[in-house]
């Protein structure tokens, strides 16, 4: 972690001045308070949706017999909704310590690919800032950041490296406050599905995907990902379907015949 991660060259250049600067790895990203605030604000509507599940988590944790200290520590330190809710299923006496830790790791394996997907930007930050920002990376803040990066990239604007941590802090704040509310205050929460709130996440991720304006080359990987995710969701419990779909889609993209080898001037290469 002490090592300067900037040493490895990023795969893509988001910086318009790169033409004058032949070494892309020399391009440090700005990391400003304004960038963090922008990320925070962009993520607030999504974070409110996360808060609904934070209340649910706090409430279920109390019903399961976790103390307030245990419940809040989990939201502050683990900060991962799906694995926290799943851990409540396993929680009992004596505590299945190993299963809890192993399950948490497996449920969160999808973060490996998410972090790798952000690496072209993160590699252009000092290691401390990059690995610090990653502590706060959730599905939601990752997706909001990625859609912003795609937009910046298309407009030829230099992204702000602090956007990710800003977005992550919005989710962190709402998740922890709502955990406290659920554990301490709320007595009897209705099923979020009754208000259509279970759909909020599908809606958010759909809007983010549409906002990324997938290109024609993306169609095959996306279809393969959908098929793999649906299949896996039928067979396996938990969040395996995300990892399976991501791997299948990525593999399809890697193995599919790609035109930039055959055709001289494909349009898609103008938008890397």
């Amino acid at each position: 972690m002490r090592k300067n991660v900037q040493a490895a060259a990023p795969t893509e250049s988001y910086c318009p001045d790169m033409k004058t600067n032949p070494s892309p790895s020399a391009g440090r990203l700005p990391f400003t308070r304004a960038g963090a605030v922008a990320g925070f604000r962009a993520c607030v509507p999504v974070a409110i949706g996360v808060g609904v599940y934070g209340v649910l988590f706090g409430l279920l944790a109390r019903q399961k017999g976790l103390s307030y200290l245990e419940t809040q520590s989990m939201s502050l330190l683990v900060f991962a909704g799906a694995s926290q809710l799943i851990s409540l299923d396993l929680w009992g006496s004596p505590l299945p310590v190993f299963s809890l830790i192993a399950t948490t790791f497996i449920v969160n394996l999808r973060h490996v690919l998410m972090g790798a997907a952000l690496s072209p930007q993160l590699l252009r930050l000092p290691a401390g800032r990059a690995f610090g920002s990653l502590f706060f990376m959730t599905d939601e803040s990752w997706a909001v950041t990625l859609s912003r990066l795609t937009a910046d990239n298309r407009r030829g604007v230099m992204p702000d490296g602090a956007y990710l941590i800003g977005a992550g802090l919005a989710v962190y704040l709402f998740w922890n406050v709502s955990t406290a509310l659920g554990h301490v205050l709320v007595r009897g929460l209705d099923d979020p599905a009754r208000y259509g709130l279970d759909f909020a996440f599908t809606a958010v991720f759909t809007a983010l995907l549409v906002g990324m304006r997938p290109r024609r080359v993306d169609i095959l990987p996306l279809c393969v990902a959908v098929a793999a995710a649906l299949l896996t969701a039928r067979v396996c419990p938990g969040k395996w379907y995300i990892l399976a779909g991501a791997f299948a889609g990525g593999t399809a993209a890697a193995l599919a015949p790609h035109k930039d080898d055959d055709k001289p001037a494909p349009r898609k290469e103008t938008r890397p």
Partner: protein
Amino acid sequence: MSMSPLSISLLTIVGMALATYTSRAAGLALMTRVTPGPRLRRFMRAIPGAILVSIIAPGALASGPADAIATGVTAVAAWRFRNLPLAMAVGVGAVLLLRQVMS
């Protein structure tokens, strides 16, 4: 055992936190050591969209016709308005309405 149940549970939570942070940091840690070739680059470039569409797929396509149509409505709203909170509100509104109508 001399440990109290509370300290066992708090240590377990710390272990869960380490497991989670490892997953969050591993992707970047791996990419600092690997210089991707063209094939890995295409893989990585497809990952964001593939993750998003995989997160959506079961909720959108395996949760009944109301949710499927509401996903379409959300996509159209997102395309038209380019506004995340608005698209989210339209989607939740659509699913509420459609679930009542279609069930």
